[in-house]
């Protein structure tokens, strides 16, 4: 009786271990940063989420079919040597696509709010996220290279 219990315990442990190890974690790859290029003082500039090569693009990979939560931590300004420049992200500046061939120009899920937690199910090619935004330089904005961090956090929801 005891030998059977020991055997069952070991077998269960190995099965659980194998299952745990065989479940791949979700991984984010940054395909593109949000690039505004040259900016004139006093002239706001927007980059839409549809603009390839300029919009921010993240690729999330993991177990196909699993749902993930998507959370952005967005900056409200860019900085250069202590000088700030306002940034704006609107409630429809984000989109994502879970299809095998994601389309940036016609995404599966368009006009998503990057300020809210988003949910998507990983496709066979993962899940691609795009983000646009706007910057508002002041009339006498100090010249130079400005930057800001855009933090993306994804996690399995378990469903």
């Amino acid at each position: 009786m005891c030998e059977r219990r020991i055997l069952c315990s070991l077998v269960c442990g190995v099965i659980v271990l194998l299952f745990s190890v065989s479940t791949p974690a979700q991984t984010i790859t940054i395909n593109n940063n949000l690039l505004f290029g040259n900016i004139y003082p006093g002239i706001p500039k927007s980059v839409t989420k549809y603009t390839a090569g300029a919009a921010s693009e993240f690729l999330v990979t993991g177990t196909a079919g699993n749902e993930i939560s998507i959370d952005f931590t967005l900056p409200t300004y860019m900085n250069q040597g202590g000088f700030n420049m306002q940034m704006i992200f609107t409630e429809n500046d984000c989109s994502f696509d879970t299809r095998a061939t994601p389309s940036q120009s016609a995404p599966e899920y368009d006009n998503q709010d990057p300020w809210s937690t988003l949910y998507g199910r990983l496709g066979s090619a993962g899940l691609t996220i795009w983000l646009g935004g706007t910057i508002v330089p002041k009339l006498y904005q100090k010249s130079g290279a400005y930057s800001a961090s855009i933090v993306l956090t994804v996690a399995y929801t378990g469903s």
Partner: protein
Amino acid sequence: MDIKQLSQIYRWSVIVTFLVLVVAAGSVRGQDVANGQATANVLAALSVTATQALQFGNVYQGVAKSQDETDDALSGIFDIVGAASAGISIYLTLPQYMALADGSDRMTIAFGTTDATVDTMNVTPSTVVATDGWVDTDPNNLPGVLVVGQAGQTNLYLGGKVIPAVDQAAGGYTGDIICNVAYNGT
């Protein structure tokens, strides 16, 4: 094996299994975080400086006098500095008269449709040519496609005309000429 030995083996197997699971679970990340970047390069701010006033010198009562914008020493000159080749808009607020300092008399001033020149090559009023920018343009309606020169500067030259009355009071007359410049995003 007796019952005691089997019980010990069972206990150890549970502990080992638990530890293995803990290690395995730790190797699987519950979430992933990526730190992307947003970048922008802000170009030089635009500035304008009035470097030379439009000067008519001595004027006789009842005799109109014109000053051409091609005169190096007497034309009005504005220097505009900014990002090279950037599109800009220039708007001049021109006076309709000049006045004595005490305001006791006024003298009409007029600007014709060819009294301004925009020089993107930063030469001089007397040497600027059509290929250097926009010559003989209307200061009240400057072209909408102006740019900062490739060296980061554009000059505006301005001429005009004063029309003193026959009973114009003698004295020094002045009037403000205001130049507004702004990037237009092109």
